[in-house]
């Protein structure tokens, strides 16, 4: 059996071993290498407990035997191979399954509460344990997106966007468990499909089927904005509506088709994805389009990771594509992650790990990816029985996904200790 010269290294000081090349069998796989490292660590540290490791060769996860991996990656077996090892990501542990009355269109969770929007025209707040805390019924049509604005103490602000062309700003007192619609944001002429709150938590942006992006203030006030269109028959609606009417601060137009997703890349920059096959970057100050990335398919969702500065997009094909939004030359797909078999409807970067993202698709599967292994996902979370419509990933390591089977699944994902240090 042929041998390879390999040098192991890690960024985690806890599991560091001597920086000397080892001769290892070329046919060894991940488990074999992991045993080697554990043996070395046992020799080094007295009270070492067995740890499963994962191995990276030139930034790619080792998924087959070392020899075949190096053969496919065209790495010479003559030289000393640098192998990085990291603690193996443990599989996400399913925690809760929260039943809804209808399809779950959107989910957003923070460290304590889960906010979901549903096709039964309501938005709900759940505790992490899956207990229904609050139901916000005010929309006259399907709730398409939800977002937390702010949580200071007991009162929280949250937003719900709906097919009825409005966005509602709610104030929720968690102690008294009372909710009140503070503002009704009117102005869109189509269903509001996506909302996102800016990093300063004072503004939010909404994208709609009417091809417009609108920026609104997220600060609740006691005054009602002036309505520009006096000839619009509003009498009837006023009696129906909840909260005070709010009008947009700014309207960004440029998309040729419906806007499907929007996000803030930083405080000054907005990124929107649309059915016109483009992702556009907007300057919020001037309201002008800065650059455009052109794809070939309708975009369903986008997500941006400030850690790795990459944009992940899901479109009406099987691929999750990674983009560099800073690139000026239009469409530059850095990587495409292909394993889904249906439209990718939700994609979310890990808030803590720059390599990981989660994607949900119409093939009923949520996949956890590491972009260092783009051929296959790390884990398939195949719990849903119908199409996955939304997914989220909280800072505390909770992965959530909701779908057309009326179920919201939560998974606990233990980010390993080393990652927090790194």
């Amino acid at each position, binding site marked *: 059996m042929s041998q390879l010269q390999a040098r192991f290294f890690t960024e985690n000081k806890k599991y560091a071993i001597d920086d000397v090349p080892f001769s290892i069998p070329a046919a060894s796989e991940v488990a074999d290498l992991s045993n080697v490292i554990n043996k070395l660590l046992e020799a080094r540290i007295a009270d070492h407990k067995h740890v499963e490791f994962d191995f990276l060769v030139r930034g790619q996860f080792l998924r087959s035997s070392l020899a075949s991996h190096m053969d496919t990656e065209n790495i010479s077996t003559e030289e000393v191979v640098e192998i990085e090892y990291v603690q193996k990501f443990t599989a996400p542990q399913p925690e809760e399954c929260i039943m809804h009355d209808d399809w779950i269109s959107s989910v957003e969770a923070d460290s304590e509460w889960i906010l979901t929007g549903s096709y039964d025209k309501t938005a709900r707040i759940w505790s992490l344990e899956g207990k229904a805390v609050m139901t916000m019924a005010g929309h006259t049509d399907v709730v398409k997106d939800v977002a937390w604005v702010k949580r200071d103490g007991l009162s929280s602000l949250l937003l719900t966007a709906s097919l009825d062309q409005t966005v509602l700003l709610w104030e929720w007192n968690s102690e008294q468990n009372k909710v009140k619609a503070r503002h009704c944001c009117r102005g869109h002429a189509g269903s509001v499909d996506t909302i996102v709150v800016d990093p300063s938590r004072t503004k939010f942006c909404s994208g709609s089927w009417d091809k417009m992006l609108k920026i609104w203030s997220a600060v609740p006030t006691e005054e009602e904005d002036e309505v520009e269109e006096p000839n619009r028959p509003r009498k009837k609606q006023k009696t129906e509506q909840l909260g005070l009417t709010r009008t947009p601060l700014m309207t960004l137009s440029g998309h040729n*088709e419906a806007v499907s997703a929007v996000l803030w890349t930083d405080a000054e920059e907005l990124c929107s994805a649309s059915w016109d096959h483009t992702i556009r970057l907007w300057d919020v100050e001037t309201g002008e389009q800065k650059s455009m990335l052109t794809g070939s398919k*309708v975009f369903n969702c986008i997500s941006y990771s400030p850690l790795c500065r990459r944009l992940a997009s899901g479109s009406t094909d099987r691929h999750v594509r990674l983009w560099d939004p800073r690139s000026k030359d239009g469409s530059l797909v850095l990587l495409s992650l292909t394993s889904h078999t249906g439209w990718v409807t939700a994609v979310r970067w890990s808030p803590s790990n720059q390599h990981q993202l989660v994607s949900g698709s119409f093939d009923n599967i949520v996949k956890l990816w590491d972009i260092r292994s783009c051929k296959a996902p790390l884990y398939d979370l195949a719990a849903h029985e119908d199409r996955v419509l939304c997914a989220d990933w909280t800072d505390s390591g909770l992965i959530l996904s909701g779908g057309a089977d009326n179920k919201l699944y939560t998974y606990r994902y233990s980010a390993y200790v080393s990652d927090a240090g790194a």
Partner: protein
Amino acid sequence: LTSEGETVMEHLGQIEIMDVELGYSLQPVSLIALLPHAHFLLHSLSPSSCLAMCSQDIRNTVGNIPMEWYKDYPHIGYDLDGKKIFKPIRTKDELDEFLDKMENPDYWRTVHNKMTGTDLRLSDEQVDLVHRLQQGKFGDVNFNEYEPAIDFFSSEVMIHPVTNRPEDKRSFIPSLIEKEKVGKLVHAIKMGWIKPRRPKETAPKYYDLWAQEDLNTVLGRHKMHIPAPKMRLPGHEESYNPPPEYLLTEEEKLAWEQQDPEDRRVSFLPQKYSCLRAVPAFSRFIHERFERCLDLYLCPRQRKMRVNVNPEDLIPKLPKPKDLQPFPTTQSLVYRGHTSLVRSISVSPSGQWLVSGSDDCTVRFWEVSTARCLKTVEVSGAVKSVAWSPNPAVCLVAISYGETIVLLNPGLGDKFICSATDQLISSYEEPEESKEQSVQWTIAEGSDHEHGQRLILKHPKAVRQVTWHGKGDYLACVMPDDNSSLQVVIHQVSKRRTQNPFRKSKGMVQCVSFHPIRPYFFVATQRYVRVYNLIKQELTKKLMANCKWISSMAVHPGGDNVICGSYDCRLAWFDLDLSTKPYKMLRHHKKALRGVAYHKHYPLFASGSDDGSVIVCHGMVYNDLLQNPLIVPVKVLKGHTITHDLGVLDVAFHPSQPWVFSSGADGTVRLFT
């Protein structure tokens, strides 16, 4: 005696000379004439008789004269002394002569010497000599006329000269004559009378005409060689023993003879012979050769170009489907909910909603992107046709079931538009003079109104298809009936008016369609598509579909192309600018076509069939009128299960994306992207 002896010596000398003469000139015939000389010769040769002869010999001096002159004289001449020489006395008469001839054995060798008048008997040697002379041989026996010749002056140089003559003086002194001649030439050259010889022209008289010729032209010339026309091979008629059916009957022979030679089918009469031996010479040989020469001379000197083409090259090069993207390739969403076959689908102009009408008496409204059924409207009959108004400023869907058309406001999309639509409908004022119409317009009330129904149109017959005009005000509906003039009616929604555009039935109407831009109206009957001008109210065109029963029709958004699907598995593409016949017939489906559709923006069209498949084709229509549409089938989309022998019933394209919807007999609507 001495004197005589002297004379003998003289005579002998004379004879010698004469002998030499005789050797060259004597002819056998003239022997007798020469006999006198021979007499001398005999004398000289026979020494025994020589003395006797010499004693008698008198030299006659008369010379060579005819001796007849002395016939009457006693003498025969004169001797040297001039004395008469007398004739010897002849005692022999004729009888003696005869007797002598008979008796004398030497008579034959006895000769008469006229000079002396005596008879001489020739000796054996003399006779032999006479014989030799007569044979042309030399008189001397010992003379060899064929002695070996010695070639003195041969081409070989001998060591000894033939002559020993010294060389002439002139052979080693310069010649004066030559000097004179050379001097003249030198003078002439000096004076310029003689010019130096012109150099020979270097240009060759003969050269290779084809030396510079290209090999290709040589080959080309060889290729251009026209072979002589081949002669017809003889058939049975030409046989010497033809089968009896080739032989002409009497009447035929008569007819053949009466025909002009150039009219005759055969230029000869077939004839039968018992054997090849009996066949006569070919009488028409010259004639036939002449005709052959005429054929060669008059044969067309034109090259028949044989087209040597690979049959594969004749197939037009179609671009690969890969290069024609985008087009739908995979099934993405299934819209489930209907419990019976879905007859008709329509997509809202914004592309957000989809409406489907089914045999389970419901109309469902779907969100395209999630396959969510947002609304279900129940009606009192199987829904045959649904159509979303193409006008984006109103929100209306026309639904036909039974004999009714319902205009329905689904309340989807922009709320403002929905309410404006409601207002528009409710603000209608009844005109004063209301005409009696074949169709009854009523306003929906009660629960129907709550479900979104706004206007209900009651027709006298079952409505099969509804279709909107591009502006969204006119609505055409089809009530198929074989022999009724009321098959197609056009409603105007804003005025709630109904028109019956056709007075005469031209066959059972299958479907109708408005032209997207111009005021034309397409009416498809079973076999033809008629194009009417609505303003001039006349028939503009009649398209022959070449198929048995048209099932569906779609008009290209440009308006110049129409596709027709038929129940006999064919799809006909008409280019209205080209002809009334189909520009192309596509036979890709295995079973009857039920629905065809064009995409609004992308060069795509789709057809759905009973075999459960949707075939998407790339159908590029160029603005350039010279370029014909490019039609490439790109994808077969399968997904629908075949239920009750029915597969796909309707197809529709998304207005902005390259997506196609199909509704099937299995109760589902499917989206292919």
